[in-house]
């Protein structure tokens, strides 16, 4: 569904992504794992149009979307849940969700109900300022907000960052549920254990290059991966 060919991205004066090629098949959960500074976030930011790639191509289905502006990419059906959640703190939960659907002009009621069904906690806190939510709730809101754009692919940047293990487990359950409902997911994580257990396909990114790929299970049992990422 999403195909990345030889993507190179310069970020802050260095080449952060050095020719990455991979594919995200429709309906799957795909994960990129890797250490800090491996270029995971930059890859996602390039796909979302937030940074311009130096070279390489990004295709969504048959369409070349390389270098489109972020709003065009969102309207094509790719959405990003940014690292560190980035909810709008002074706006209510409901307003946050509505901003997620900013580019849509049709009725939002069904989707708001859908998100509230996925995250009943958000419904309870509908009129609260997002900044007053707990970390886990903010992550739920960030995911819900991204879903409001009715994405084909949802990209998630470190959804487990700074959350308690139990909360992380809950978030991953929801990711699987969202995937079951037909949304393709591209996930990047430092929490390799959780990510590999969830993913259908996984890639390992090291200093800007893909060094390994396979199903989540295969990588979980790989000695090198175990040593480097699972401890």
């Amino acid at each position, binding site marked *: 569904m999403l195909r990345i060919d030889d993507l190179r991205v310069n970020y802050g004066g260095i080449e952060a992504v050095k020719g990455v090629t991979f594919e995200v098949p429709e309906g799957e959960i795909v994960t990129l794992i890797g250490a800090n500074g491996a270029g995971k976030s930059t890859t996602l930011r390039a796909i979302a149009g937030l940074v311009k790639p130096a070279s390489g191509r990004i295709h969504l289905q048959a369409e070349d979307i390389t270098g489109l502006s*972020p709003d065009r990419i*969102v309207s094509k059906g790719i*959405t990003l849940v940014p690292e560190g959640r980035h*909810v709008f703190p002074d706006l209510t939960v409901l307003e946050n969700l509505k901003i997620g659907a*900013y580019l849509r002009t049709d009725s939002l009621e069904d989707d708001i109900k859908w998100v509230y069904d996925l995250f009943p906690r958000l419904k309870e806190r509908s009129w*609260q300022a997002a900044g007053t*939510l*707990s970390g886990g*709730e903010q992550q739920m809101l960030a995911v819900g907000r991204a879903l409001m754009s009715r994405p084909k692919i949802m990209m998630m940047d470190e959804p487990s960052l700074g959350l308690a293990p139990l909360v992380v487990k809950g978030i991953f359950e929801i990711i699987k549920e969202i995937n079951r409902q037909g949304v393709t997911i591209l996930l990047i994580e430092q929490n390799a254990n959780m990510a590999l257990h969830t993913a259908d396909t996984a890639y390992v990114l090291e200093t800007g290059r893909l060094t390994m790929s396979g199903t989540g299970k295969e990588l979980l049992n790989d000695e090198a991966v175990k040593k480097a990422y699972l401890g």
Partner: protein
Amino acid sequence: MIQTKKNKTGAFLGLVAAVVVLALVVVLENTLPSTSQLFIVLKKGAVYSLVAVSMNLLNGFTGLFSLGQAGFMLLGAYTYAILTVPVAQKDTVYYLYGGSALNFSLPDLFGGVDTPQGLILGVALAILLAGCVAALFAWLIGLPVLRLKSDYLAIATLGFAEIIRAIFQWQALGPVTNGANMITQIPTFTSFNIKNADGEVILRLSAFVPFLVAILCIAVIVMLINSSYGRAFKAIREDEIAAEAMGINLAKHKMLSFCISSFFAGVGGALFAMYASNAQAKVYTSTMTYEILLIVVIGGIGSVSGSCIATFLYVAASEWWLRFLDSEMWIFGVKVPFLRTGFRMVVFSIIIMIVVLFFRRGLMGDKELPDLFRPRPKKTARKAGEHNG
């Protein structure tokens, strides 16, 4: 949904409030003596409210710290004045330059300032164009400066306002701007008082007119803020990264907010020219921008009603309530200490400092007037959420 229902009742209440205020202004104006300081406060307050709300749209709702408001007011004031000086008066007004380069006047096109349609259509059109000119200039300087953030944007817009002020005083533009002299003989608020055949005023509307224009403009701004555009502006204010990731085009929306804010600052400038009965570049200094910034901060950044309330309090305190501090006073033959010209500003500044100390987020914070009467649901739940964050 609940949201739309709330908006409808809100709009209805707003309409009722606007009608009540307008009626009250007309009644006051035709019952109290016209020399009362109250009317200076009402007229200037209406004008400043609009400018303060326009600044709040940009600084409070979009999070763009701009200090160009006086510059855009100047553009509006001059556009209005240049377009409304009656043709017959041009030689007198522009006597240093042997008449004006523009040989038409908007009210004259519709029958002159002495006819109702000439006055209303001419003035309305001139005010509209005043806003458009300000918005056009905003677009032009927005292209380079809106890339800047926070303090740098403030410096750039402040610089723009100073440059504009210098340009409008430039002798070479005299036939249009009247150089460093003021443009007079323009239609003012008092031109709208209805007179009988003997020239006696039978119905005063001189405070009603600025209120009407200001209320209409503020209503448009409020509708904008409550629309999906307004939500996008707030999203940009809160978090640019997330806003961009949600598909909000940052450059486009910042420009939109900047131009709309400047449009209404331009309208405010036109109204200020009407209030002052002239357009004069040296009035629109950075001090005026700071005055408006002060009002916005005191009222609450991100609160329209806060800006309006703060405007009237500010104008009333500076123009009316504290006047007595400027003149000597004797009680039982003893001269009250400190009272002399200029003491008013000392007391005024102290009051402002006290207000800022006790209302850290302004009088209203980011709440609106109706929010104060609405019980906040789930206060306890929110408190609990704060701790496990």
